[in-house]
């Protein structure tokens, strides 16, 4: 675990050191090439702006209205049906939020960790879930939007299915491990 954390800490500094040095040794005009590449950054940022705003507005209104808690309340019997601890139901808002909004999900996870304690079952489950799935819906709309794709085909179905399996796997492994 410690080794992995060290790799993560050193990854960016080492990339920033080795890529320019190797490029220089291979006779690349390092500064000029860097600037030429960096130029693209601005256009991409501007291109995704409307998609970002469109999605953030809709998601934010949905979340701030309290719709999430009502939805979670409806979904609770489904969890009970599968014989899961009623405790697990506390995780539902996080599971719904996770594909939609990164900062929103982090907020819910943080609140759960503080409310139940970081070393409780819910605290560990929320941590695992937060670390293991991505903001799938959000990422898809922004990435596709940035290059002008309008028909996603089976991409959304596939991404959300993977998230769902991540949720099931999180519940299973946390129940088994701790």
């Amino acid at each position, binding site marked *: *675990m410690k080794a*992995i954390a060290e*790799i993560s800490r050193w990854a960016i500094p080492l990339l920033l050191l080795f890529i*320019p040095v190797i*490029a220089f040794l291979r006779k690349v005009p390092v500064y000029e090439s860097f600037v030429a*590449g*960096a130029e*693209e*950054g601005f256009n*991409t*940022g501007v291109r*995704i*702006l409307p998609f970002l*705003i*469109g999605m*953030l*507005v*809709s998601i*934010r*209104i*949905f979340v*701030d*209205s309290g*719709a999430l808690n009502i939805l979670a309340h409806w979904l609770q019997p489904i969890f009970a049906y599968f014989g899961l601890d009623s405790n697990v139901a506390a995780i539902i808002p996080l599971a719904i939020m996770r594909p939609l909004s990164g900062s929103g999900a982090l907020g819910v*996870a*943080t609140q759960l*960790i503080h409310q139940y*304690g*970081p*070393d409780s079952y819910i*605290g*560990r489950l929320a*941590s*695992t879930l*937060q*670390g*293991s*799935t*991505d*903001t799938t819906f959000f990422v898809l*709309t922004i*990435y*596709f939007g*940035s*290059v*002008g*794709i*309008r028909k*996603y*085909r089976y*991409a959304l179905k*596939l991404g959300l*299915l*993977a*998230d769902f*399996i*991540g949720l*099931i*796997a999180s519940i299973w*492994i946390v129940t088994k491990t701790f």
Partner: protein
Amino acid sequence: MVNLIWLIMLVIGILISAINGQIEIVTVSAMKAAELGVEVAIELIGVMSLWLGLMRLAEEAGIVKGIARLFGPVVRLLFPTLKPDSPALGAIIMNLSANILGLGNAATPFGLKAMQELQKENPTPDTASPAMITFLALNTSCITLIPATIIGVRLKANSANPTEIIGTTIVATGCAMTSAIIVDYLFRRRATK
């Protein structure tokens, strides 16, 4: 599908705010979210420029090609529709590496770059190509070795062992990623039949 989800979130949010007698939430949230969108985009321009500049150096020095060749066999298996020397491969590999290491804000620039390269090889510019769908499935379900943010939250909440969830996270993401690869393969086969 996205049009419908977008509309449903908007309508349900507004209706529930109205029922709860807190319709002003809608106004505040909409304005705040629009502002946030600009903040995120501006921040992204900064990191994006940094990483794309670095990536151009790596490309011109032949490093990207070298990495792509190294991972060639795996990539060919996952992306059978891509040319073996496709310029998208370097960006795809960098994006997945950044995801695995938990370097979220380095992952996005490479991911957007990968999408641009994939779009150049896409014969149907308004429809997602199989390679794009595979890439996004991998990107969003990718194994995470260091869930740095959540470890930070646990640390602040006085956890006795903030990093104890690294193991469970690796297992959960491993399951998600494996099933994403399998299901993607099945969907792709069905779509091309």
